[in-house]
């Protein structure tokens, strides 16, 4: 009754198995070779450094499925099915062998039990997963912008996995029933699933049992071999590519943006700047498209998607993958670029790309570590090169070029916020803030890089002055480059104007080299990010929350306990938190003030963007709501009366949101520095 011992239409079992195996492996190899073919056309991307870190990531995120539990039910189901998949892989191999030699799959009672218990759990999980999809229809599975639903693929896969379990159970169970009369003395291993099948098959004739036994085997076999080839043709390609994708993940800091091309640092020598067609993406980004599981977690965390802009990060991956499959089909010839719809512009619209604030919530949520910000920046680079910049962004960008700030205010007013100073740098007016303007050759302990918001926006100037006074209270020596400073270029770079970014950065670096300082500090996380990641300064760069925390620890900064029993909450700025992993310093400062602090639902690395990135203050595409208003509602939900920010954009957006949602009087926004200043012990 063993499959290997039978003949099928004249073909002996092992021969049939050999043919099937050869066909399957052959087809699989062919499909994989085609898929890899596109990867080889992609731009270079160095990903084989720091092998130790990569292995660790593979272990934790890949095998450990560390990102799955964020969605508890789906996460648990997935982890279980994934673990089951690994455990049952041995069974799958041995069952294939069973087609060549009877008894191949018998490797001991221990594994037999282990396998069977696992199979039962997996079967149950599959059924739960199917029912859950049908009954609860979780919103994130159906993207607002999806034109073709790939949803049916989920049912196919879950169904096939379930079928594998059932087929194996029938194979085992039928044998159990058939051999029930023999060898009663042997101890039977505990096989709950197989036993369950056996009990259903009990009483059938031996002929039927034999047919079922063979059927169970060949169905399992067939499904497995079909599965192998189906994976790289569907969204479940991730089963094969996910682990490599995690291993090859981006190890540079989240806030750092990739250079336009790794193999050509000179912008002027590039034909195409950024990404115009599929082949302009790096090979790793193309692998990302293959690895997208269409789970929707990225879009579920995306503030732009949440507020109704045309952007859905997941759709970028799915559309690019569909384009890859269509232009580089497994069967058929490659579709040349001029016969394709424009990837950037038509398939992915300009508006989708401009709607991103680069907050990074999508990357933080993705279980297989797909990168988004770099891709969007690359596509924006192409748009900028073509001149396709929205009119509302052209003016601030032109102003950044001519005057070093997006407001178009004169460069010689950049240092005005400091207040009147006498020649020796001492303040003349009483409401000065202890910050000096540093001429070339001057020195200070801290170089305060204000960036454009703090220098020109009257509301944010207050924050800068407050911080100045805090540092003065700590006896620190602070200076600023005043009119020699220009915008850090952080936003401009992420908008894709790499040439302008380089110009701004070089101007700042030259000005910095003319002054001496121990450390750079800034109240703007965007400036903090760019100076830290890309300016390559010799001196350390710190955000003002970090400086204050450090000064408190050193005893240089003393704050009295705030006499305020309102409920406070801290809004993590994207570029301090997610992109630079700093969640503790601001909380340390708040703790020192003895305030009642609660955490919002989405805090720390899940913080919801205020809508400040990508010069959103100047550009607003279509959206149904403002991100700031959504955030303010989240604050209200946890009963917060004061929202503490550590970023000028967050401050502006949240203050605006409080006004537009009529919460003036019931909620206040304040910067960490202003809060500290109020509590300064002189």
């Amino acid at each position, binding site marked *: 009754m063993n499959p290997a011992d039978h003949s099928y239409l004249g073909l002996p079992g092992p021969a049939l198995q050999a043919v099937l195996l050869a066909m399957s492996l052959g087809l699989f190899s062919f499909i994989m070779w085609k898929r890899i073919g596109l990867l080889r056309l992609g731009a270079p991307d160095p990903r084989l450094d720091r092998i130790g870190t990569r292995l660790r990531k593979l272990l934790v995120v890949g095998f450990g499925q560390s990102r799955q539990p964020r969605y508890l039910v789906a996460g648990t189901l997935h982890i279980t099915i994934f673990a089951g998949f690994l455990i049952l892989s041995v069974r799958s191999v041995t069952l294939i062998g069973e087609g060549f030699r009877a008894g191949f799959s018998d490797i001991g009672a221990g594994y037999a039990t282990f396998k069977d218990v696992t199979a039962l759990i997996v079967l149950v999980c599959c059924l739960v997963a199917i029912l859950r999809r049908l009954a609860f229809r979780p919103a994130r599975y159906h993207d607002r912008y999806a034109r073709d639903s790939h949803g049916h693929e989920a049912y196919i896969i879950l169904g096939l996995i379930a079928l594998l379990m059932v087929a194996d159970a029938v194979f085992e169970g039928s044998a159990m029933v058939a051999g029930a009369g023999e060898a009663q003395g042997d101890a039977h291993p505990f096989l709950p699933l197989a036993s369950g099948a056996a009990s259903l098959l009990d009483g059938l004739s031996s002929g039927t049992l034999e047919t079922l036994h063979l059927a169970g085997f060949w169905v399992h076999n067939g499904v497995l071999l079909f599965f192998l080839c189906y994976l790289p043709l569907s969204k479940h390609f991730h089963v094969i590519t996910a682990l490599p994708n995690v291993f090859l993940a981006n190890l540079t800091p989240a806030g750092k943006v990739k250079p336009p091309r790794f193999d050509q640092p000179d*912008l*002027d020598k590039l034909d195409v*700047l950024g990404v115009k067609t599929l082949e302009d993406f790096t090979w790793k980004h193309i692998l990302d498209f293959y690895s997208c599981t269409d789970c929707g977690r990225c879009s579920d965390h995306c503030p732009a998607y949440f507020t109704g802009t045309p952007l859905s990060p997941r759709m970028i991956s799915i559309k690019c993958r569909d384009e890859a499959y269509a232009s580089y089909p497994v069967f058929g010839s490659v579709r040349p670029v001029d016969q394709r719809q424009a990837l950037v512009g038509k398939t992915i619209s300009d508006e989708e790309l401009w709607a991103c604030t680069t907050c990074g919530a999508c990357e933080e949520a993705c279980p297989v570590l797909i990168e988004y910000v770099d891709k969007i920046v690359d596509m924006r680079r192409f748009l*900028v*090169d*073509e*001149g*396709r*910049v929205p*009119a509302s*962004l*052209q003016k601030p*960008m*032109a102003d950044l*070029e*001519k*005057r070093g700030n997006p*407001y*178009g*205010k*004169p460069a*010689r007013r950049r240092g005005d916020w400091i207040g009147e100073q006498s020649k020796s740098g001492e303040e003349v007016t009483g409401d000065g803030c202890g910050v000096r303007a540093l001429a070339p050759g001057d020195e200070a302990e801290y170089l305060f890089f204000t960036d454009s918001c703090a220098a020109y926006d009257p509301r944010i100037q207050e924050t800068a002055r407050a911080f100045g006074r805090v540092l003065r209270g700590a006896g620190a020596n602070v200076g600023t480059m005043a009119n020699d400073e220009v915008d850090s270029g952080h936003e401009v770079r992420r908008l894709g*104007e*790499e*040439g*302008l970014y*380089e*110009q701004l950065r070089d101007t700042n670096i030259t000005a910095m080299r003319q002054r001496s300082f121990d450390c750079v500090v800034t109240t703007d996380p965007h400036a903090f990010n760019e100076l830290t990641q890309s300016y390559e300064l010799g001196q350390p760069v710190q955000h003002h929350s970090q400086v204050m925390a450090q000064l408190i620890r050193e005893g240089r900064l003393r704050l009295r306990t705030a006499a305020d029993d309102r409920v406070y909450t801290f809004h993590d700025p994207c570029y301090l938190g997610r992109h630079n992993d700093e969640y503790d310093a601001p909380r340390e400062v708040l703790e020192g003030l003895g305030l009642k602090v609660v955490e919002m639902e989405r805090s720390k690395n899940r913080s919801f963007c205020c809508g400040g990135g990508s010069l959103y203050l100047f550009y607003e595409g279509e959206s149904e709501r403002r991100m700031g208003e959504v955030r303010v509602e989240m604050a209200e939900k946890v009963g917060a009366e004061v929202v503490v920010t550590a970023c000028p954009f967050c401050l502006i957006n949240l203050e605006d949101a409080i006004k537009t949602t009529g919460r003036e009087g019931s909620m206040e926004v304040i910067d960490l520095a202003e809060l500290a200043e109020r509590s300064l012990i002189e």
Partner: protein
Amino acid sequence: MEIIVCVKRVPNLSETEIEVDRDGRSLVDSDLEYDVNEWDNFAIEAAVQLKEARGARVTAITIGDEDSEDVLRRALAMGADEALHLMDTAFDGSDAWGIATALHRAIADRSFDLVLTGAISSDEARGHVGGMLAAMLDIPMVALVTSLSVDGTTATVRHEVEGGLERVTRIDLPALITVQTGLNEPRYVSIRGIRKVSGMEIPVRTAADLRLDASTVGAEAARVKVEEIFLPTRGEGAEMLDGDEESVVEALVERLQRAGGF
């Protein structure tokens, strides 16, 4: 199709504090930023769009000093095929007539189907050079065009007329069109884009090259002479109006009318 676009480099005064120079006839230059006249930018974009749609050759022309080359490079970066720089101290101080005269000489000997200019420039704010140039070339013109399409040798335009209305008009080429803002969405010119055209040669023409009698251009030849420029007097901060509703509104209406509010 041959298109000529006339462009001008003007100071960008939006955030600057303006100071009149001691000679009383020009602005203090030190803090001024310059850029292409906004209306002219729309004209360049219109020309390049026509080129992309129907295949045309676009030439950008300016009159100005060395710095004016910037606006020509910008036009090239946007897609113009060539540029022409009319540069000569003889042109300094030209009034609209002098400018139109020089442009006329530069253009008259060339073959062209369409001349595009901005409707008005932000510095002199006359809006007349286009019309003068058209009269000198003896070609028809239409001003303040908000939409433009070309079919064969006819252009169909929408242009602004009084009462907030627009008129649809057909005009045979060759013709001159002055362009209103909002005609299109001018493309952005990136730093890299400018660098890409930095090597292109831009021929320079003096008055002599144009066979222009120097007495027909420049300050001496100007028929409208600027005697002086001055800043209108203004106070600091708002003048707060006090009193009962009736008198306060009355005072406000008075101020509004004086300022040209209605």
